[in-house]
C-alpha cells in the first residue's frame, strides 16, 4: 500500500466516523424529542422542543420528520395540531382504544357549532355579537362551549357595558384536528361583501349587550 492509498483510506475512515457521529447525534435528538412528545399533554412546537433539548430548530425539524416516518404505520401517530406536535393513537386502532378509554363527548348541537364557528372566525367576540349573527339568544350555547373548554374568556371589550369577549382554546384546535386557526374551513366571502358586524346589526340593536 502506498502513501496516497493510505491517505485516501484514512480520509474515508474519518468521513465515516464523522457520519456515524452525526447519525448518532441525530438519533439522540430524535430520542429526546420522542420522549418529550410522549410525556407532554399539550402540543409542543419546534421552538419549544429546541429549547427543551438544547438543539437548534433545524435539528428538531429533522427529528420530527424522522419520527413521523417511523410512526407512519403503527398504533401511534405524530399529529400536527394546535400549532405544534403531539403523539396520538392512530384512528385505525380507535376501537381498541375506546374499549379502554371512554370516547370523549364530541357531539355538539348545530347551534353550538354555529356559535363556535363564529367565535373561531371573529375572535375576540362578545356574546352580543354572536347573538347578532345568529339572531337568537346564545347564553346556553356559549356556556356549553365554555364548559367543554373549546372557548375561553378573552378579556372585556372596551365599549359601553364592557362585555366579555371570547376566543377559542388550544383544545378547540386539537379536538377539531386543526393545526392553527388558519387551518379553519374558510368562509366563502364574495369580494366586496365583507362580513362587517356593524352592518349586520339592525340600528335598534346596536348595543345588544345586557350588562
Amino acid at each position, binding site marked *: 500500500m502506498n502513501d496516497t492509498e493510505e491517505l485516501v483510506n484514512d480520509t474515508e475512515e474519518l468521513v465515516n466516523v464523522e457520519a456515524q457521529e452525526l447519525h448518532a447525534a441525530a438519533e439522540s435528538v430524535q430520542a429526546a424529542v420522542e420522549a418529550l412528545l410522549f410525556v407532554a399533554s399539550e402540543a409542543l412546537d419546534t421552538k419549544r422542543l429546541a429549547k427543551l433539548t438544547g438543539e437548534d430548530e433545524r435539528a428538531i425539524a429533522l427529528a420530527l420528520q424522522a419520527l413521523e416516518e417511523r410512526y407512519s404505520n403503527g398504533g401511534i401517530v405524530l399529529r400536527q395540531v394546535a400549532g405544534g406536535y403531539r403523539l396520538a393513537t392512530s384512528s385505525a386502532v380507535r376501537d381498541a382504544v375506546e374499549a379502554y378509554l371512554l370516547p370523549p363527548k364530541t357531539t355538539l348541537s348545530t347551534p353550538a357549532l354555529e356559535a363556535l*364557528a*363564529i367565535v373561531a*372566525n371573529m375572535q375576540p367576540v362578545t356574546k352580543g355579537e354572536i347573538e347578532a*349573527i345568529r339572531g337568537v339568544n346564545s347564553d346556553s350555547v356559549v356556556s356549553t362551549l365554555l364548559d367543554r373548554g373549546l372557548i375561553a374568556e378573552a378579556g372585556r371589550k372596551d365599549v359601553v357595558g364592557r362585555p366579555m369577549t371570547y376566543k377559542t382554546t388550544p383544545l378547540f384546535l386539537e*379536538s377539531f*384536528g386543526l393545526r392553527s386557526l388558519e387551518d379553519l374551513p374558510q*368562509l366563502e366571502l364574495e369580494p366586496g361583501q365583507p362580513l362587517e358586524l356593524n352592518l*349586520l346589526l*339592525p340600528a335598534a340593536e346596536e348595543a345588544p349587550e345586557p350588562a
Partner: protein
Amino acid sequence: MTDAEALRVRLDVFDGPLDLLLSLIKEQQLDIATVPLASVAEQYLAYVRMMEDLDMEVAAEYLVIAATLVFLKSKALLPPIPAEFVDEGEETPEEVEERLRRRLIAYSRYRELGLQLRVRQEEASGFYYRDLGDPTSELVQHYRVDPEKLKRAFILMLQQARPEKREVVRERVSLLAQMDYISRKVKEEGSSSFFALCHELGMTREVIIITFLAILELVRRRRIEFEQPDLDDDIRLLPVKS
C-alpha cells in the same frame, strides 16, 4: 300526522328566526341572494301564528323579523312613498331588506361553517392523546368501569363494616294530640279528609299511621263521622250530626 303536528315537529328544530327564514327559502329552492324576502312572509307568519296557537312562548327575536317581513310586504304592495314624506336618515324598504338579507347570508355561512367543523371533529375524534393532567383537578371519568365490579367491591366493604351503636331518636306525635287536632279541624271547617290531613302534616310514615289511628279512634268514639265511597278512595271526615 296532521298539519299542526307536522309544524310542531318542525318548530322544535328551528334555532331562531334566521334559521326559520333560511329553511323557508331553501324549502322553496329560492336563491338567498336574490329572493324578495317578502315572498316568504306568509309562511313565516304562519309558523309564528302556529307557535302562538301551540302556546309556545314566541321569542321577541321571531317577532322582530316578522315585523320586518310584514313591513317589506306592505311596501311591496303599496306605491312608493313620495320623497318629501320620507324622514331624513330613515331607511328605505330596499335598505331594510338588504340588511336582513346580509344577516341571513352571514348566518347561513356560519351555519355551513359549523357543519364543516362537525366533519372535522368527527375525523379528529379517532385520535387519542395522552392526557397527564392533574388527576385531582376534576372528577372526570376517563376509564371504563364495570358497574358490577364496583357493586361487588362496595358490598364487600359493607360486609366488613363494624357494627355501630346508634340511638334512634323519635319525634313523637301523640295519638291524643292528633285526635284533638282532627276533631277540632273537622268541627271548625265542616269537613276534612285523611289524604288532606296527611299532606298537611308532612306525609311521613309516622304522620300517616298516627293520623289513621286517630281517625279510627275518633270514629269508634263517635266524635266524627266518615264517608268512603270506594275502597281506594280518600276518607272524608264529617262532624257528627246532632
